[in-house]
């Protein structure tokens, strides 16, 4: 288990730097002390094996302490995007019924609204960002109760809790974490990942990236998504270091830090590299220590791949593919094949087997995989689990072809999930919100090509007869219930959709205005 690796490293190399963020430098000893104290506190609060603890914190030492502290106490970490609205949080909380929430103070607004609507929460642990002061929700030392929920401050817990030496007995098969991912039904699905899933996939990644204790990764991707989690778990397992930068909106700040901290690795999604190539000074930097760069989270335009390879000519670039249901990683393309096999996602990572299987729904073959990294299932959702886990194999929903030498190339996706930046977004979820507006008759949401984001969100709406509406009104309505990254960038109004003979909306024709033929825009 990852937290066990942490305890071993903390014993052998307590002064080794684990995390750097701004001017903060946290050693493995510090990290493990935090993890132990939080675990002790949670056990004291009555957290039992498999109890869920939700976490809403940006990348930070406090995130890592919370994520692993929960697992040390035998609980299940449920790391969430802190941008979630009260509406989204309620759906997730109703699904996983967490007893405890660890949340940064600045995200309390949505949380308090969720609490007002009724939750399972018994304990709230508030995290104050370094150097920031907020309104006094709780007093410093004593427990305060709000709406029946006991509130504490994480910094106080880490200072005052006892060091516990006895932890519940858990096995590698026990669930370590639930990662929520968007589903085609519009309801979020909780991917259950065991300790064994994390260890297996971490070992695979460590092997092909040749990660060692000398590696130091720059982290701009959020830990609460599986790609970010894989960077965290692999670097802890090899006793490497993590340099955290949450300010990628200013890419040159990140690049400066990469040079200053002599970073050896960098992970990004296509939009990360689009921003670096289009609006940063990357061409004027020299990264003498940058050994490798990884790219996953959707296809990167071949032109960007070539440009990146030219700029980072001394750095190995790994294109990778995977999904949350596979812990993170399923395939990788060795750097030496990058320019020889453009568009390929490579071959299976160690300990994963992949088949391409023809399924009845689609023309192409679907990627189906087996391995110790395949999820346990969806939390509390045996029906959805059965759709993707059959005979011990994970049906990914992605279609692909294989060349004569076994290299895979993605052809498409069975589902219409939108991949925008690092996010996977369910069109149905957004459609349901838009349909709440009384002026709306029908709503169809699609992903359209975006040079930076991979895909951006477009809503195509049919209004009720005689009614008019502005796009901004739709966006404002969505903002009330959805996280900012789910707000449609483009909103158009049509008289009707292109449909099949059975009346089904032909969504692929909505992706460009030219495809909406014969249907006038209002």
């Amino acid at each position, binding site marked *: 288990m990852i937290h066990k690796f942490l305890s071993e490293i903390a014993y052998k190399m307590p002064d080794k730097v684990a995390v750097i963020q701004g001017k903060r430098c946290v050693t493995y000893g510090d990290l493990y002390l935090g993890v132990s104290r939080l675990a002790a506190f949670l056990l004291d609060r009555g957290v039992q094996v498999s109890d869920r603890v939700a976490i809403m914190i940006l990348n930070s030492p406090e995130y890592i302490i919370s994520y692993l502290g929960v697992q040390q106490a035998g609980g299940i970490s449920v790391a969430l995007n802190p941008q979630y609205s009260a509406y989204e949080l309620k759906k997730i909380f109703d699904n996983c019924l967490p007893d405890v929430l660890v949340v940064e103070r600045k995200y309390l607004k949505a949380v308090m609204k969720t609490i007002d609507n009724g939750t399972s929460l018994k304990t709230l642990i508030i995290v104050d960002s370094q150097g920031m002061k907020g309104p006094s929700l709780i007093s410093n030392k004593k427990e305060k109760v709000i709406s029946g929920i006991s509130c504490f401050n994480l910094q106080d817990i880490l200072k005052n809790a006892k060091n516990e030496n006895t932890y519940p007995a858990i096995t590698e098969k026990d669930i370590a974490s639930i990662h929520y991912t968007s589903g085609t039904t519009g309801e979020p699905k909780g991917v259950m990942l065991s300790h064994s899933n994390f260890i297996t996939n971490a070992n695979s990644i460590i092997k092909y990236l040749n990660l060692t204790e000398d590696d130091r990764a720059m982290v701009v991707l959020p830990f609460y998504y599986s790609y970010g989690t894989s960077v965290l778990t692999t670097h802890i397992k090899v006793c490497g270091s993590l340099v955290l930068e949450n300010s990628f909106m*200013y890419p040159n700040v990140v690049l400066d830090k990469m040079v200053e901290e002599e970073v050896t690795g960098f992970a990004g999604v296509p939009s990360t590299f689009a*921003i670096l190539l289009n609006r*940063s000074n990357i061409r004027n930097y020299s990264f003498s220590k940058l050994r490798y760069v990884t790219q996953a989270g959707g296809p990167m335009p071949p032109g960007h791949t070539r440009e990146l390879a030219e700029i980072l000519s001394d750095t190995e670039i790994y294109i990778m593919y995977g999904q949350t249901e596979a812990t993170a990683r399923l395939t990788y393309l060795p750097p030496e094949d990058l320019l020889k096999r453009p568009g390929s996602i490579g071959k299976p990572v160690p300990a994963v087997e992949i088949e391409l299987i023809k399924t009845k729904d689609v023309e192409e073959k679907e990627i189906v995989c087996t391995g110790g990294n395949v999820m346990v299932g969806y939390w509390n959702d045996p029906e959805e689990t059965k759709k993707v886990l059959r005979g011990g194999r994970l049906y990914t929903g992605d279609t692909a072809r294989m060349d004569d030498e076994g290299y895979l190339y993605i052809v498409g996706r069975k589902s219409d999930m939108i991949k925008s930046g690092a996010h996977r977004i369910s069109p149905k979820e957004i459609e349901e919100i838009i349909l709440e507006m009384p002026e709306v008759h029908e709503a169809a949401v699609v992903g359209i090509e975006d040079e930076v984001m991979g895909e951006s969100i477009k809503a195509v709406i049919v209004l009720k007869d005689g009614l008019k509406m502005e796009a901004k009104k739709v966006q404002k309505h969505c903002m009330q219930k959805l996280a900012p990254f789910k707000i449609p960038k483009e909103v158009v109004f049509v008289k009707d959709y292109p449909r099949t003979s059975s009346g089904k909306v032909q969504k692929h024709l909505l992706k460009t205005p030219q495809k909406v033929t014969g249907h006038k825009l209002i």
Partner: protein
Amino acid sequence: MTEVIMDSITRIIKNFILENFLFGADEDALGHDDSFLEKGIIDSTGVLELVSFIEEEFSISVGDEELIPENLDSVNILARFIKRKQESNPE
């Protein structure tokens, strides 16, 4: 006069952000000294949209090396940056 110009610049910036990132929220949803980064008002692609807007609106050019918090990270900081750019390159 300078104060009037600065007021005008901050108003234009604030209106753009309220309209495009906060979707018509009230004026008091965005303070002139609120950090876009700390408050999570704008993400990494939003910054590119903001920069495109100010380049067109104020007839300035923003270099890649100028995409740093010291130039962009609040309404007031951004307004001062725009003013400096205009003064150093008057049309």
